[in-house]
């Protein structure tokens, strides 16, 4: 996939160009493109003067980074302890079945991405599902359909 990499230089310019900025730069790239395109990783390595292997190592170590394009609608299921004991795994399974994908992947039509997240600190609303940054609390198994339709 070809990308408009013009936005990269703006991201690089936000930080001092050294190793310490690596994670911040990758986060901004992730925010911009919703994943880390290969070309962007290569450009990052070059600009920050960090070996490509190290960039890749960091990019695959941390959960926050994805390496494939993500869907229009990103559904994140909180699987923190509280959400778990209040049935988050059941909600997860529902969503997985409905979308026919496992958590951590994207539907083929690039409509939905299903992800899990370890606690978003909204435990009083458990179980919590976040759809494109909007929080849904006290989610029930039967809410799966509603979540998929939500904006």
């Amino acid at each position: 996939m070809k990308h408009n990499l013009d936005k990269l230089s703006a991201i690089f310019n936000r930080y001092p160009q050294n190793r310490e900025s690596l994670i911040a730069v990758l986060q901004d790239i992730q925010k911009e493109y919703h994943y880390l395109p290969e070309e962007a990783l290569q450009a990052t390595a070059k600009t920050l003067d960090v070996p490509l292997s190290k960039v890749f190592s960091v990019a695959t170590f941390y959960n926050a980074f994805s390496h494939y394009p993500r869907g229009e609608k990103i559904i994140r299921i909180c699987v923190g302890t509280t959400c778990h004991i209040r049935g988050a795994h059941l909600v997860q399974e529902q969503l997985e079945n409905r979308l026919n994908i496992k958590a951590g992947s994207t539907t083929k039509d690039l409509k939905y991405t299903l992800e899990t997240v370890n606690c978003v600190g909204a435990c009083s609303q458990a179980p919590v599902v976040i759809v494109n940054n909007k929080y849904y609390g006290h989610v029930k198994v039967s809410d799966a359909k509603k979540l998929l339709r939500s904006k």
Partner: protein
Amino acid sequence: MHLDNPQQLIDWHDKIIAKQKKIKKKILVCCGPGCLANGAQDIIDKFKTVLKEKKISGFTVEALKETGCHGFCEQGPLVVMEPKGLYYTKVKVKDVEDIIEQSIKNDKIIDRLLYNDPQTDKKIERYQDIKFYSHQKKVVLNNLGNINQCNIEDYIANDGYQALSKVITSMSPQKVIDTITKSGLRGRGGAGFPTGRKWATCRKVESDTHYVICNGDEGDPGAFMDRALMEGDPFSVLEGMTIAAFAVGAKQGYIYVREEYPLAVVNLQKAIEIANEKGLLGDNILGTDFSFNIKISRGAGAFVCGESSALMKSVAGEVGEPRAKYVRSVVKGLYDRPTVLNNVETFANVPIIIRKGASWYQKIGTPKNSGTKAFSLVGKVRNTGLIEVAMGTTLREIIYDIGGGIIDDRPFKAVQTGGPSGGCLPASKLDLPVDFDSLNEAGSMMGSGGMIVMDDLTCMVDVAKYFLGFLVNESCGKCVPCREGLYQLHALTVKVSEGKAEEADLEKMEKLSEMVIIGSLCGLGKSGPNPLLSTIKYFRDEYMAHIRDKRCPAGVCRALITYKITDACTGCMACIAPCPTNAITGKKNEMHVIDQELCTKCGACFAVCRYDAILVS
């Protein structure tokens, strides 16, 4: 305005107080994580638009405060009206006009928004009278529900930066360390290492530079105290760090915030900019030759980065793999320089201790565990939220007095503290005083302060399996006992939960756990088996039920349960649609049946049944 000497800070403080005195009525809207998830932002916006449209004499937008977490998340979104302390719960956007019209303009109380005490079934007007609040001791969280999140004037009006001013003008670094040592403050991140001793060691190490790092990587699932502090009272964290920097001689500090907390990053960044602008951070603080800068370092989703050496690697832009700490990080930390690393709550305690004195602080709590501790009280407890209690408060007080007991009055089964490094304590430990040492002794740990209450519908094998699964995902993969050992422990718990385990497996798990504890490189592995060991210790019967009787008493482990519809079924058809595999059949007003072949035991029917007609066995 840039403050060039301590006197200017005092003048400014007085000016703010005078200005704020003029504001008679205040509306405090809680913008803590829980309330935001429940739509507090919409309420704020609505207040703003309504206040713009309707001019109310003596009341402007300035009196509207977007505060940090007020605590009682279960009842959110919360709106508090000062000076009376009038307390509205579960406020919706449509209530906003009513609140302005009735409570602001006409000083009337809106009954339907008041908190209803479930025990007495009476409405309570002021939050101070609610048991959830009255049993707490708020020290470090005191600002949270009261001041605007990123407003330095509010912070200064509440005695903010007085401690820093005192430190800079009248204390030597050694005296600061002595005060902290005397206060008995122990690290709030989990292990409880004496903060004063840590600072003293760091100060003694000769180096071209020292670092101060604030650990805001609150990774324990079920904990959000640090998030609430960073979002709701960022200046207290900055002030605490600045004092620490003064004490150990650091010029550069970092705050490591986990990426799941975007608002914390925004608020801290804002606070840093403001503090820099005012001369309370940066070069020549308050006109002295003491300089200290703080940089935010965002985590990227790795639980292991809560471990100090992994965190420091992450700050340096590397993979967050811990290193062996035979040489401690106070001696050789970030970039091999002496580094003080404390957690958010620890730093937030510092200005209060300096301001009010070590002996004042020491009197709170118990002799070896002074002060208070913030907890996020969550799970199957009635009143979930953010709380703060004096050290030594018993679990019973926390769960029953503050927490209001278990949801639906079900029996209490266990409380989990310390996250994936902690353990589950049973009912027999309810009178345990909550402090570092007692929890350790009981096989759990304080951790950063998540407290997850579990009822009889929670399966302890499932909890152990959950935590081990979590750790398998979060292990960095460097050392073998953690990478392979936890993986095998998880596999064994799966075996138990599927009813495939033998009695010998239990012993095998205990043995392997011991080896993982001895053999692992960092704290993640060394404490990883705790949830398993503590559940085996206190809930052995439940394991045996899975192993011997192939039965899950809590009705959670899917391989061992079946869903059946009993004669209580009214044939309402409510369960038919939610069933994802169409396993339920039945006609209206006739008893339904679950096809066991098709049933995936997802629990969807159980959740919707209003007649308790679905039996889990």
